[in-house]
């Protein structure tokens, strides 16, 4: 049975159902237990399992360190980073510890942890609560970065992430929390490392994730009216990327537009561009176009934030440019 459920409700349901199924899963973080999370994502868990939900001090290094050690012992921690930007204060635990434990332990143990990180801009909270952090972590073999764009994906991917044996940074875009989609009531998981072909098309491949998916879908509809057929791909796992699905699509369409919320320089769009140039240069009919934020910190004033974040019109413009090339 499916019904409409919000993105936040889907994550909450995934946690409840997976914790019901697996007693080694627990949650910890700042305000995640009694309060149910700053964004209300972990509501009801502490009431149900008071010994499996832990409010911590403001100590992201300790939170992540505890996760890493507990995971090696066979527990499955799900930590919340109230804002993904806080990765900065526990970066070492993610990149030098979580990402390397499997390597260090010769595959005998690993950091099977999930770090739920609230990401992205658009809520007028300036540069320390609005960043897209995925490129900070994409140069670190051993990590996995997952980024759902709707409630259905959020539930299935979170379950898939908890069951994944590697450290997973699970990005929850705060602007998606109140969006709704059809979500099955029962527990299910979506396989990691697989990109989703959201819509098939033949002229342009648009790759987009999280909130940028809405831009891609709207643009596809608008361009359809002009006779331009757009294929949309959602990586879902941003790192490691599902190279095959993306490269196959661009080989078919010959044109790639990446819509990425974070700044342009060294964003994941850059890696996608390098990937197609390296692998299927002869299939390309036009240069890569990247629609991204400007290369500045995310500002506070609404007029400025709107100026800096990616513009929908730029997606249309980029698509027109690759068609006209």
């Amino acid at each position: 049975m499916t019904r409409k459920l919000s993105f936040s409700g889907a994550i909450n349901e995934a946690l409840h159902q997976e914790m019901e199924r697996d007693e080694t899963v627990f949650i910890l973080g700042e305000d995640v237990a009694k309060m149910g999370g700053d964004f209300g994502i972990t509501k009801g868990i502490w009431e149900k399992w008071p010994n499996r939900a832990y409010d911590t001090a403001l100590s992201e290094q300790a939170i992540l360190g505890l996760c890493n050690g507990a995971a090696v012992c066979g527990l499955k921690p799900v930590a919340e980073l109230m804002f993904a930007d806080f990765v900065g204060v526990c970066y070492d635990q993610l990149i030098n510890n979580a990402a390397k434990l499997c390597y260090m332990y010769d595959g005998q143990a690993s950091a099977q942890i999930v770090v739920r990180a609230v990401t992205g801009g658009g809520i007028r909270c300036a540069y320390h609560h609005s960043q897209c952090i995925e490129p900070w972590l994409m140069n670190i073999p051993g990590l996995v970065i997952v980024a759902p764009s709707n409630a259905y994906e959020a539930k299935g991917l979170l379950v898939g992430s908890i069951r994944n044996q590697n450290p997973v940074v699970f990005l929850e875009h705060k602007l998606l929390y109140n969006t709704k989609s059809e979500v099955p009531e029962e527990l299910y998981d979506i396989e990691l490392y697989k990109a989703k072909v959201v819509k098939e098309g033949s002229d342009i491949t648009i790759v987009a994730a999280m909130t940028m998916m809405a831009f891609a879908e709207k643009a596809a509809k608008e361009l359809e009216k002009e006779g331009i057929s757009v294929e949309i791909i959602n990586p879902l796992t941003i790192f490691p990327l599902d190279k095959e699905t993306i490269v196959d699509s661009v080989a078919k369409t010959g044109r790639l537009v990446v819509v990425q919320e974070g700044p342009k320089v060294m964003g994941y769009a850059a890696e996608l561009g390098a990937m197609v140039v390296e692998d299927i240069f002869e299939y390309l009919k036009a240069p890569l176009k990247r629609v991204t934020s400007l290369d500045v910190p995310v500002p506070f004033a609404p007029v400025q934030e709107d100026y800096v974040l990616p513009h929908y019109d730029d997606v249309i413009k980029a698509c027109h440019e690759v068609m006209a090339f």
Partner: protein
Amino acid sequence: MALTKDRLWKVYRDMVLIRRFEEEVEKYAQNGTIPGFIHLSIGQEAAQAGVVEALKYTDYKFPDHRGHGAIVLSSPQERRKNCMSEIFAKESGINHGRGGSMHVNDLEARNMGFNGIQGSTVVTCLGTAFDSYYRKANKMEGWEADDKDLDVTAVFMGDGTLGEGTCHESLNMAATWNLPIIYCLINNHYAISTHYTESHPQQQLSTWGKGYEVPSFTVDGNDIEAVIEITEQAAERARKGEGPTLIEFMTYRWQGHFSGDPAAYRPDGELEAWQAKCPLLQTKKKLMEVHGYSEEELDALHAEVEEEIQGYVKFSLESPSPKAEDAMKFVYMDREVEGR
């Protein structure tokens, strides 16, 4: 607390093993056989041997970067040679040459290895301590009994480590939740070249634990009996769920920070003063004067250790290197990474 005659004999042997292990490692690091850099623990044998002696095989041990002693003593006899060949970057190494000196781990013996970043294991150790705490609180399989002891976690850290913010976060969390941790602060006086009193306001770093209401002690880290006594007390408290302990072991590293560092930053005479307090010499004296062991008996012990160490060295030298392409293994548990 004085140890029994047999136990003191046993831990003296452990310390001699560390000393000879380190001397051989130094020799092969200096002649270029061992790649990379190594940190030697000569002079600090009692703190390592004493802490491991006070723990159970099933307790979690996080050695520090100067931890060859704790590493080799944590593993059972049959795997000790593999600890040395790991440092030699060999396939027979306990981690197949993947980590080397700084990362030698033996999960079966619950030696969890060191993370090359100072202070990192000081928060990772929260997790191994949390494991039995969690299992007991949730009455998971095997943990139903109210009186079941928790598994203790001992984390080694240096005086320099204490400058890392993780130490604050870890002590605070462990103290708040009464996690079963022993913070083994090996105060060897120097963080590379910086004396601890130049980077901390305290004269004794153990006072630092009191702010967290963590029982904190300073002991002579070269007195193996004192080390074992205080660590056993801390382990007992931890097992019973009474929380963490911070122990500062005052000791001294005889070498520089890494093998080859001339340690010119130390005042004249300081090394010699500490060498006079050698933990091995002190114990040997006690074995002979208090327990009546003869010079011949001690010579026999030394010869036995020597044979063992030479066995490790031979094994390490003769073992082949790992396959280059095995570098691609175990980046992820469930997926391959493309090689060359």
